[in-house]
């Protein structure tokens, strides 16, 4: 297998006359923690929906876990895990039942489900509440459980959409340790967040600006390149023009992925 987990080239999606994602190209390596940042409306969600096989691109190509987003979206869905802030677990089921449900959906055997349930509950320290309704658990516990459930079928890649929104600072950090743990075991992680300190936890990040990639690289390199002290500062600098969605010709943003002939 290659060591490229996600590969997008000129990936584009339009809705009528509106170009939500505008020729983005990037690669995510296997085992990498990749931060996918951008202002509200910059096109993150549309891009992510194309990568997880839920939305067909208008043009461009992308391969996720080696599968083509146009023709192999079902294979993509089996190779990835997905967790969103809004919905990941059934709240009126228990942790044990949620694991069994998702394990079953992904075709694990009873034996596998039993083993993984015990291992996950022990790892998360949730054995004591394994049979209580998920809705009764604190948000931070639910999010940690949801992350583990997203990994129940050993996916090659896991997509996390604002997984730590509203979570307390201690649990937020414990959550990131779970991410590191998964990444060091070889799982590729693509994560979105509005906490700019979390951007610094990523191996590499991209910042989407008005449907395009305004910056991509390691946090340290980007700070050096743009002469800023933090990713927060960089984000504010880049993302501001996104609201108007007018490309700024005088922008200092280096744009390695957009030769001028591909621009509309």
């Amino acid at each position, binding site marked *: 297998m290659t060591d490229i987990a996600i590969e997008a080239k000129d990936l584009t999606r339009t809705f009528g006359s509106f170009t939500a994602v505008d020729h983005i190209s990037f690669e995510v390596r296997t085992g990498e923690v990749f931060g996918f940042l*951008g*202002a*509200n*409306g*910059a096109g993150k969600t549309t891009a992510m929906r194309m990568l997880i096989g839920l939305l067909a691109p208008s043009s461009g190509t992308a391969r996720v876990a080696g599968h083509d987003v146009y023709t192999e979206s079902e294979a993509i869905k089996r190779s990835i895990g997905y967790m969103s*802030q809004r919905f990941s677990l059934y709240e009126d089921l228990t942790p044990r039942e949620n694991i069994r449900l998702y394990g079953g959906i992904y075709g694990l055997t009873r034996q596998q489900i039993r083993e993984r349930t015990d291992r996950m509950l022990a790892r998360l320290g949730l054995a004591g509440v394994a049979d209580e309704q998920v809705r009764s658990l*604190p*948000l*931070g516990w639910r999010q940690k459980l949801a992350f583990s459930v997203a990994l129940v079928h050993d996916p090659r890649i896991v997509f996390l959409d*604002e997984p730590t*929104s*509203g*979570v*307390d*600072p*201690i*649990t937020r*950090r414990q959550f*990131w*340790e779970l991410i*590191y743990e998964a990444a*060091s075991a070889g799982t590729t992680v693509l994560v979105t967040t*509005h*906490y*700019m*300190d979390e951007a*610094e*936890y990523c191996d590499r990040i991209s910042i989407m600006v008005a449907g395009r990639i305004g910056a991509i690289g390691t*946090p*340290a390199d980007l700070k050096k390149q743009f002469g800023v002290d*933090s*990713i*927060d500062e960089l*984000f*504010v600098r880049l*993302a*501001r023009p*996104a*609201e108007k969605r007018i490309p700024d010709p005088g922008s200092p943003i280096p744009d390695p992925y957009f030769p001028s002939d591909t621009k509309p």
Partner: protein
Amino acid sequence: MSTEGPAEASPPRSPIPDPRSLAVLVEGLVKRFGPTTALDGVTFGVEKGELFGFIGPDGAGKTTLFRILVTLLVPDSGHASVLGLDVVREYRALRQRVGYMAGRFALYPDLSVEENLRFFASVFGTTIEREYAQIAPIYTQLEPFKDRRAAALSGGMKQKLALCCALVHRPDILFLDEPTTGVDAVSRREFWDLLGNLKQSGLTIIVSTPYMDEADRCDRVALIHRGRLLAVDAPSAITSAFDRPLLGVRTKDRYKALLAIRRYEHAHSVYPFGEVIHYTDKRADAPVNQLDRELRGFLVASGFADASVELLAPSVEDTFIARTAASDEPRSPNPNLEPPDPGSRIPDPAPRGAA
């Protein structure tokens, strides 16, 4: 977590202001929902004209507190008055004078921007035209989209519309429940700039947020966790109450270093914070240069030759972590909570254990 230092003795408090200048006075407020205690004896005061922030994660009790203060929910015990009006007995008079922006987008998605605003104005017996001066600084940004359905607005625009609707009846005090949650870092800044401008007009503003870095935008903040206030003070006073030196470790392989430092015998707390690992030592009173030198020695011996150690100024988030790490251990009532106000006019609230 291991030891509980003397710093957990009692939360730092700013001097209690003159009760007559208080816009909000809350004493021993308790609210339960079945087995869950949402508010567990909350006491604080907000001065007129203050920009006051409640900082805490989801489930801390922020929304319950706000709903009580805007008369949508009745407390089980304790007292609360807003603008000198009791939130239970005088709710009718109070409702005319508070502006409230709920955490969830609470406008009518099928109505246009202008229709939403017109509706909220009419509920309070006024019109957009009459109140235009009050809302103009924000509404002018929305006016180009006034015929758009509210559902079709971007996140930042929705928040601005909700703020307009909360302001249209010229309230004397504004309660904003998590107006910046889920909003990107740029729109968050813009929203706080708007609040800063509103404050200039003399409005009292009470905001809640889960983003610790927004604390610095407030005159004073309350850190709230599991229904209790951990501290109430100016952001600078809250961080200066951090009880021991905070060291920052920079190294290439942060995750491995994090795990290594946890095994260091003197480690008190170790957690990632952006690109730096934040570290405190069990020996709270040891000189910084000794702690620094020994930690660096440990790192080098553990194979992190590139590691650097520096003294850091603690942030509100560091303080929150330190206080919740201590309070998370026992789930039993915490006797160190808010002491009763010495300067309060209101007699002691009902004993907390009684209900």
